[in-house]
């Protein structure tokens, strides 16, 4: 009985805060746009379920797939998310490696420093990047004063700025799982590799990297999944050329006020992300079994 109660808490949470909203969104995606409050029809009517159901259709889905704007936005979002995930991995790995190799008494402090940015609002931190990246921003001032460049660089409102923003924002999500798996590696394994004739760079690829793979995979999913649906970063830092599905979705909701189509976009986005989420779950499961 107590066991059942304990398990029911997370399930109840999921039902109330995930499944119910999802079905609301799903239902809206099957509706038609209307000039009303709320801006769609039909609204749920308990007295006439049959009539209500008969008005629902998959029109919006057909529309999304017929318009190349949406399909391109999905692919572009996946591409940007994938490239930024790779960049995040390249930046995070040396940091996590350094943390795992740091003196034991330093490590808690270093972990604290990695999560410290979370203490400031994500939105404000992305705004701060505008001040750094814009034409007369800190980065251009710094580089011009150094004499590295004579003309200010155009980074702001380009896809490059989006990459910078995503790498910066999601770095902790990559560092932490990487650090967790690197820190677990027994240092005597590297001694054993060296003892058997392997120079340090070889040991890294033959021992350290394979053993950190669970962390690499976990970190990549933790960055890739939210980055695919990201809209704040492309909206604030990206330009008109930056096409991402999150931004499209936001525009559809708030500029076009087309709730049914944007709901359909959201449901398809969710379906697109189910694949990596399931893969991520499987990776976590495997890790737990190995431990």
């Amino acid at each position, binding site marked *: 009985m107590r066991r059942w109660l304990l398990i029911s808490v997370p399930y109840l949470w999921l039902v109330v805060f995930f499944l119910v909203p999802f079905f609301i969104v799903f239902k809206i995606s099957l509706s038609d746009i209307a000039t009303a409050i709320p801006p769609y029809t039909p609204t749920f009517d308990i007295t006439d379920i049959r009539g209500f159901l008969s008005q629902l259709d998959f029109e919006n889905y057909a529309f999304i797939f017929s318009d190349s704007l949406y399909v391109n936005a999905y692919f572009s979002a996946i591409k940007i998310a994938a490239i930024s995930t790779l960049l995040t991995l390249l930046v995070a790995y040396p940091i996590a490696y350094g943390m795992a190799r740091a003196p034991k008494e330093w490590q808690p402090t270093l972990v604290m420093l990695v999560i410290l940015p979370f203490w400031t609002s994500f939105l404000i931190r992305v705004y701060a990047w505008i001040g750094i990246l814009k034409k007369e921003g800190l980065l251009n001032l710094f580089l011009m004063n150094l004499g590295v460049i004579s003309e200010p660089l155009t980074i702001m409102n380009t896809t490059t700025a989006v990459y910078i923003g995503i790498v910066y924002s999601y770095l902790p999500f990559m560092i932490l799982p990487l650090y967790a798996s690197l820190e677990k590696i*027994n240092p*005597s*394994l590297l*001694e*054993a*590799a*060296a*003892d*058997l*004739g*392997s*120079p340090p760079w*070889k040991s890294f690829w*033959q*021992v350290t990297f*394979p*053993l950190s793979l669970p962390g690499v995979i976990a970190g990549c999913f933790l960055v890739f999944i939210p980055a695919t649906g990201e809209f704040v970063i492309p909206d604030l830092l990206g330009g008109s050329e930056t096409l991402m599905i999150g931004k499209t979705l936001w525009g559809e909701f708030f500029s076009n006020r087309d709730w049914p189509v944007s709901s359909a976009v959201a449901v398809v986005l969710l379906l697109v992300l189910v694949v990596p989420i399931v893969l991520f779950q499987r990776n976590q499961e495997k890790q737990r079994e*190995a431990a």
Partner: protein
Amino acid sequence: MSEAAVLGSSQTATSGPGQKSPVRTPAPQSGFAPWKDPSREPIVRFQNVVKRFGDFVAVKDCTLDIYEREFFALLGPSGCGKTTLLRMLAGFEKPTSGRIIVGGQDITDLAPYERPVNMMFQSYALFPHMTVEQNIGYGLKQDAMAKPLIEKRVEEAMTMLELNRFAKRKPHQLSGGQQQRVALARAIAKKPRIVLLDEPLGALDKRLRQQAQFELMRIQETTGTTFIIVTHDQEEAMTVSSRIAVMDHGEFRQVATPGDIYEAPNSRYVANFIGDVNLFEGKVVKVDGNFAEIDWGPGLARFKSLAPEGCTGDQQVWLTLRPEKIRIAFEKPSDASNAVPGKVVDVGYLGSISHYHVELGNGQRVKALRANSARTVERPISWEDNVWLEWPPETGIVVTR
């Protein structure tokens, strides 16, 4: 005291009893004794090696020669510097000063992966993401050896340690004993000149450990490799090794064969560390040829014992006496050189042998051991019995420190 002096005295202790009574040898001898042959070049030389960690001196000025095909044990309590010495040989620690020479080549500044030694780690350090086969072949792969050759060598090593059945398994699918064998197979697969073993059997239970000890000896013999083992288990060191270096606080206390360490310890520390021992503190009052008379208390009969090298009168000494060398009897032996009366305070019956704790007149307790060679005795020695302890003058060893 300098290390050279310690070594010097240990060597006299090694040859001491042998020279004095050439007919009698203390322990089983294999005839393998390259350290006695001055023409032999040692395979490993530690020359005045010092290692400091901050203020802590882990190894104090150690000088030691180890010869080809030796099974050499570094024995001592934890923190005595034995593992540091081994790790310096493997290249994981750099000596603060001094040189390490292997096969005539100074390897002090070489990286671990450039040294002709392989180590078996205390934690085994098996690569968890590789199979048994891949673990054993790892070192060979680093040498860019041809694949069929690697396979052959891995096969050989697996056969030697009866691991063929487990070739495709990962380390976590193996028992502790099997993991230990994989670790050993990996250390010998490259056929290194020297195999280092850091507490190799520490994680095994007692029965498995004894089996593994004999396996280590078998492999050392069949491969003809020099083995250097670090252990805190004196029985293990005695069983497997050709010579033992007893260490304490970063220094060698004695370097000798197991037999000599046991039968001719050079100090109270060594005598105490290896096996059980009874210690009698006293003063040498007379030296007569090979024998000395020791006064160990007013009103007590003097002991007669082999005199230590360069012993003079009026020197404070300790007589070390192994329990099994003491005979215990009800009657005073008539012609004994050393006999003391006492009362039995404790008896430990172990089946094959019995332990007796005897309290002497001055309150000192002495341990004596007797083999139960007959199935029944007329009157067994029991608690509160008054007994006599007796031993010949050559069984005790007199040490001066």
